[in-house]
């Protein structure tokens, strides 16, 4: 079987390495931006457990939709970091030939079928992907990642309602990272959990600690099983925190220092790293090797992207119509 199917065995160690890869990638990405080698983009630092934990539960034929904060999802799905960097930089070797940039990257070969940077766009498209699957013979499912901010767009409710009424196999994963660009979630909704909205639609839901990858792996396994077997939607909320700013560069002047510090103390990578060490599953040496491996990969990837050419000007008008 393929790379992705192997990943599905859900080893926590593998999830950890995915998280390390995401972290390293995102920090490199921010550094490239700071050095003016890359345009503005959004990182998912602090949220790695959600991407790794959910996506490791998916099958190769499951389909993914995501949003502006997608690098973690793409990497967890097995995307080449070099081609993501290249896409962010607008290079021709990017997954979308540099046309997307960081905000709408889709990768057909990996089943990352649709990405929209319109907040809520991914939610508007998800039932249609679920519909295609529900009308096919397959038992594959669609998974849509979205933020707590997207949950305040009306389309969230239209999407959830339609998926419920039509029994569509869509797993809704809300990465509630407490921020909606420069506005704290608390300013935008009275409930603490986006999952609370699901009940009235008749959609089962659960909020879990999004910083504990073992918890996410577990909850996502159950959620995926439910959607796959019941052919109905489910909403999983990974409660987490956006550790860096909304979009690089960002001085985070508007961020409550204590809240940030308290979430940093619950860093998802440190958390699982030390747990695995404590339980004797990993030694410091093994951990160091893992970090080195991902660092090397990310450095090579960045170099690949930096060395890649921009698309030709003819690309301005290709791919508009089929």
């Amino acid at each position, binding site marked *: 079987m393929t790379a992705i199917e192997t990943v599905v065995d859900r080893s926590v160690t593998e999830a950890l390495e995915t998280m390390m890869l995401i972290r390293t990638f995102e920090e490199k990405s921010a550094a490239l931006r700071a050095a003016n080698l890359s345009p503005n983009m959004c990182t998912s630092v602090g949220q790695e457990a959600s991407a790794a934990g959910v996506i490791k539960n998916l099958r190769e034929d499951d*389909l993914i*939709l995501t949003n502006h904060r997608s690098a973690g999802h793409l990497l967890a799905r097995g995307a080449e970091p070099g081609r993501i960097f290249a896409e962010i930089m607008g290079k021709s070797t*990017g*997954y*979308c*030939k*540099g*046309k*997307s940039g960081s905000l*709408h990257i*889709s*990768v*057909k070969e990996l089943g990352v*079928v*649709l990405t*929209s940077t*319109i907040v*809520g*766009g991914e*939610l*508007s*498209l*998800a*039932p*249609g*992907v*679920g*519909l*295609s*699957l529900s*009308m*096919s013979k397959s038992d594959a499912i669609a998974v849509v990642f979205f933020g707590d901010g997207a949950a305040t767009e*009306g*389309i969230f409710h*239209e*999407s959830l*309602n*339609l998926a419920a*009424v*039509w029994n569509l196999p869509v797993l809704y994963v809300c990465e509630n990272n407490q921020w909606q660009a420069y506005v704290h979630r608390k300013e935008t909704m009275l409930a603490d959990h986006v999952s609370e909205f699901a009940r009235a639609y008749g959609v089962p839901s659960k909020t879990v600690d999004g910083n504990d990858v073992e918890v996410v792996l577990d909850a996502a396994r159950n959620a995926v099983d439910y959607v796959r077997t019941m052919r109905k939607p489910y909403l999983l909320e990974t409660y987490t925190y956006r550790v860096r700013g909304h979009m690089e560069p960002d001085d985070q002047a508007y961020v409550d220092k204590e809240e940030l510090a308290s979430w940093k103390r619950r860093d998802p990578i440190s958390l699982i790293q030390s747990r695995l060490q404590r339980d004797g599953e990993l030694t410091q040496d093994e951990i160091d090797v893992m970090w080195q491996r991902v660092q090397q990969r990310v450095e090579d990837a960045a170099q690949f992207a930096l060395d890649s050419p921009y698309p030709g000007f003819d690309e301005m008008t*290709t*791919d*508009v*119509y*089929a």
Partner: protein
Amino acid sequence: MRTITADEAITEALVEEMRRDSRVIAFGEGTATKGYKLVEEFGAARVRNTPLAEGIIAGTAAGAAATGLRPVIDLLFAPFLTFAMDEIVNSAGKLRFLSGGQFSFPLVTVARTGGGWAVGAQHNHNNESWFVSSPGLKVVMPSTPADFKGLLKSAIRDENPVVFFADIGLLFVPGEVPDGDHVVPIGKADVKREGSDITLISYAKTVQKCLEAANVLQENGVSAEVIDLRSLKPLDEATLLASVQKTGRAIVVHEAAGPCGVGAEVAAIIAEKAFGALKAPVVRLTGPDAPAAASFPLEAAYAPQADAIVAAATRSLSRA
């Protein structure tokens, strides 16, 4: 040949394409209620009522189109498209390009518009130019039952998102439709009447007004060519320009308001590309730049009438 209404032509086209291609599905607010016969033939999975939510109807169509289905959605009235602009414009129109060509969005959005029902500007707003101006979309707006059928069939077969506008005033007017698999290509205007002195360019309900005007002009010894655009995007520039090269005069007529309308685009194309042939300015006759009133006489007067077309043509012809 049979005589049916445009409304019937829409259903015929849909039924035939659903028989032809099992990927074609139809949904919208009341689609299954109105199309209960389609439900009987094609099953409840392929013909669906939806909740009352245009955004998710269009978004679902886009998501389904990207992953193998060919949805035809009914968004009822053009002003309701305001709730589906992200899905039609930002998703269906742009995501093919933004994905570097990885995905296509073969979907058709049907919406009614124009005067005919006396229910006011939140049901009657000729906003077709929004979609003409948006990349990645095609836009059609037929004037005869035959074109309703033939263009809808082409739209369903097209690999791109097509917005199909149905002029309310034409829906229940009967007309002849050829038997069999009647397909009208998108992007091809129809020369409804040949003429040599002036070109009247229009689409939807005002095509008929142009034909009426051409009859009157004929009586006055003026030979007017009448062109029905049918396809607003892509526009059939070749047919337009050939006609104006011949006549040297053009009047563009539509119910939609003037500013940045299809008439502006047509006038600008002619003024640029047939400049040498023009003997008089290209004139636009459009609805007023105002919401459409519900009041029936006001609604009926909104679209340009034959007498105004005759007058404009006569003015044009009076210029050297």
